[in-house]
C-alpha cells in the first residue's frame, strides 16, 4: 500500500510526500485541518490541503520570520503575532528574555488545539506567562490598536482562504498604526518563482511599500513550500534591516539557532536579479 499527500503547486506541478499514517483530520468553521506522519519529513500540518509546516523544515521558516526583526529592533518588548496557531513563532520569541508581552491572534482555535496535541515541536510555549492568545480575525484585532507594539509578525497562510485579509492594504495600514514610532512588521511574503505566487507577492509588496517608509524583502530556502524559494517582507518605520543591524549585540544573547545567523541575516536581503526586478516593478 502506498499513501501519498499531494499538493498542487501550479496547475502543472505537483509536490508529494509519502504518508506513513494520518494523525488527525477535522473541519473547523474556517478550514479543513489535517496532520500526517511521514518518514521523510516527520509530522506535517496542512490547512485546506496546503502545506503549513513539517517537523523537518519548520525551523527555517520560524527562525527567519522571528529573529530577523527581533535582531534589528534595539529593544523589542511588546510583540504581536498574527496567525501562527502552530506555535512555531512563539517558540522562537519566548527565547528572548527582554520580551515582556506577546499577543497572539489566531482566527482558528482548532488549529491551536490540534497543534498542541499533535505538533509538540512547535506548540510548546503556549503556557509561557507572557503569551496571551486571542481567537479573533487579525484584521479586526489590529483595527483597534494604536502606537502599541514594537514588532508585529504576520505569519499568514496564503492570500486566499481565511488568511486573505492579511494581505490587504487596510491590514498593512492598520499594522502601521498599531506599531510604535520605531516599530517593525515582518510578514510571510509568498514566493517569487511560479507566476501566480509571484503575482501575489508583487501585490502584497506594493501595498506594504505604500504603507511603510522602509520596506525590504529577504529570502530563505524552505524545501516543502512551492519552489522552495520563499520570501519575507520587512517593513519598518525607522530601522533599516541591515544598516541598523547590530550583529554583535544579537550574538551576545546566546540564542542557539539552526538556520539563522548574523551573516545570513545580512545575506538574506541580497536577492536574485529577477526577484529584484519583480519588486522594483511595483515600487
Amino acid at each position, binding site marked *: 500500500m502506498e499513501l501519498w499527500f499531494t499538493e498542487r503547486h501550479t496547475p502543472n506541478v505537483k509536490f508529494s510526500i509519502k504518508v506513513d499514517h494520518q494523525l488527525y483530520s477535522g473541519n473547523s468553521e474556517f478550514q479543513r485541518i489535517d496532520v500526517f506522519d511521514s518518514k521523510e519529513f516527520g509530522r506535517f500540518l496542512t490547512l485546506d490541503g496546503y502545506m503549513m509546516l513539517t517537523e523537518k523544515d519548520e525551523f527555517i521558516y520560524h527562525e527567519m520570520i522571528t529573529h530577523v526583526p527581533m535582531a534589528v529592533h534595539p529593544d523589542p518588548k511588546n510583540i504581536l503575532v498574527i496567525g501562527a496557531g502552530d506555535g512555531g513563532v512563539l517558540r522562537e520569541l519566548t527565547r528572548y528574555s527582554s520580551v515582556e508581552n506577546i499577543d497572539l491572534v489566531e482566527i482558528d482555535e482548532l488549529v491551536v488545539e490540534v497543534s498542541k496535541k499533535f505538533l509538540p515541536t512547535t506548540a510548546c510555549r503556549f503556557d509561557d506567562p507572557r503569551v496571551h492568545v486571542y481567537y479573533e480575525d487579525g484584521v479586526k484585532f489590529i483595527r483597534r490598536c494604536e502606537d502599541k507594539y514594537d514588532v508585529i509578525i504576520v505569519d499568514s497562510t496564503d492570500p486566499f482562504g481565511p488568511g486573505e485579509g492579511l494581505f490587504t492594504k*487596510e*491590514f498593512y495600514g492598520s499594522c502601521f498604526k498599531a506599531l510604535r514610532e520605531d516599530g517593525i512588521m515582518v510578514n510571510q511574503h509568498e514566493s517569487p518563482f511560479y507566476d501566480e505566487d509571484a503575482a501575489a507577492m508583487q501585490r502584497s509588496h506594493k501595498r506594504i511599500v505604500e504603507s511603510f517608509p522602509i520596506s525590504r524583502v529577504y529570502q530563505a530556502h524552505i524545501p516543502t513550500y512551492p519552489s522552495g524559494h520563499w520570501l519575507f517582507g520587512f517593513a519598518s518605520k525607522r530601522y533599516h534591516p541591515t544598516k541598523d543591524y547590530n550583529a554583535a549585540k544579537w550574538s551576545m544573547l546566546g540564542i542557539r539557532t539552526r538556520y539563522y545567523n548574523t551573516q545570513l541575516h545580512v545575506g538574506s536581503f541580497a536577492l536574485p536579479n529577477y526577484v529584484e526586478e519583480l519588486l522594483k516593478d511595483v515600487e
Partner: protein
Amino acid sequence: MALSQVDAPIYEALRRLRRMRVVPFDVPGHKRGRGNMELTEFLGEDCMNVDVNSMKPLDNLCHPVSVIRDAEMLAAQAFGAANVFFMVGGTTSAVQSMIMYACKEGDKIIMPRNVHRSAINALILTGAVPVYVDPDVNRQLGIALGMSVAQVEQAIKDNPDAKAIMVNNPTYYGICSDLKRITELAHEHGMLVLVDEAHGTHFYFGEGFPTTAMAAGADLSSVSMHKSGGSLTQSSFLLMGERINSDYMRQIVNLTQTTSASYLLLSSLDISRKRLALSGREIFAQTVEMAEYARDEINGIGGYYAYSKELVNGDSIFDFDVSKLSVYTLPIGLAGIEVYDLLRDEYDIQIEFGDIGNILAYVSVGDRKRDIERLISALAEIKRRFGKTETGMLTQEYINPIVAEAPRKAFYAQKRSLPLSEAAGNVCSEFVMCYPPGIPILAPGELITPEIIKYIRYAKEKGCQMTGTEDINIERLNVLV
C-alpha cells in the same frame, strides 16, 4: 401531482432537455456553445448548454402554458401574490409595465419625485402625467425619505382623477413609507397602488423586515430578484394583486418584452425563488446579523454614521430595512463618492454607490465575515489617512424640482442645446442623474435652477458618474425652445 416550493419547473425542464440530447436546428446559432468556443471557454459548457430558445418542453414566456406558468404560480405562492410574471428586462421593464397598465395618455399618476428613472421613462412612453409628492428630506444626511401620509392625502384630494399612486419601498437607502395606510387611502379613492420594491425582495422571505407590498394590499409590485434575491442580473419579478387582470397585463408586458427570453435568466429566477422559499429566513437572518455587526463597528470608528432604525419617525421614515448598510461620511471631511472611490482605488473594495454625503455597501448572504472586516478596516484607514475637517462640504442632496411640462411633451418637444452655465431658467428636456442610484436630478419638463446647476457641478467635481444627457460630457443641456 401538486407542485410545491421544493420544485423548480423551468430548471427541471432544462435538465430534462439536456439529457434528451436534442439535435439543435434552431437558434441560438452557437449550438450549445460549439459554434463559439472562446465564449464557451469563458462562460462554461454548462452555461452554454442551457442557453436555448423557447420550445415545447420549455414553454414560452410570451404565452406561458406549461413549465413557465407552473414556475410563475409557485412564485406567486412564495410572494403571497395573486399572479407573478417572470421578467427578463430588469426591474425597469416591470416598473414600466406597472405604469403602462395603470395609465393611458394624459392620465395622472401620483408619485414621489425620487423615483428611479425607469418610472419617468414610462411616463414618456405612455404620456401619463406625474403628480409629484415631494418626499420628506433628512437635512443632516441629505437624503430623500418616504412620502408622508398627509402629503399623499393632499395629493389625492387635489387630484381625485389620478389613476394610481406609485411608492418607492424601500428606497435605495432602506427607508420605507407607511405602505399600508397609503394603500388604504388610494383604494378608498379608486386608485391603484404601484410599488417599486426593487430593493425589497428580502422583505418577503426574512423575518422582522418592513411590510411587503403584497401584504399591505398593494396592486402591483416590481421586485429585483437579482438584488437581494440571488438571481442573475436583469432578472426580475412583477407581482400582481387580486384586482389586476393578469391577462391584460401580459399584453402590456408583451408590448416591449423580448420574444427570445433568456433561459439563463428564467432558470435563475426559478432556482432563486425555490432557495428563498425554503431557506430565506436563515439567509436573511445572517445578512442582517452581518449588516448590524458592520454598523456597530463602523459607528465605533468615529466620524462615520451608519444609520438604522433610530431614524424611524412614524411617517416619512415609517420603517427601516436593517439589511442595508448606509453610511453618512461628511463628518470625516469626505463626500460619499470620495470614500466610494478610495475604497475601490486604494483598497480593492467595490461598494454599491456613493453620493454627496453617503455610501451604501450592499450586504448579502454571499458576503463572508472576513470581507466585512476588510470593509470596516478600510473605512478606518480612510479616516486615518484621508480624513479632513467637515467644513466646505455640500450637504444638500435632494432638490425639490419645479415641473413645467409633462415628461413626454418635454422629451419630444423642439429643443436646443445650451452650455451648463447658460441653462438656468430654461426647461430641461432630458435627464441628468448620478448612476447609481439613477434617481434624476433633472427630468424632462423640469425647470433648471442655479441651485441645480451648482449641484451638478459639485457632483461632477467630486467624481460622481453622471448620465442621462445627450452630451456625454454633461457640459451642455438640451432645453425647450
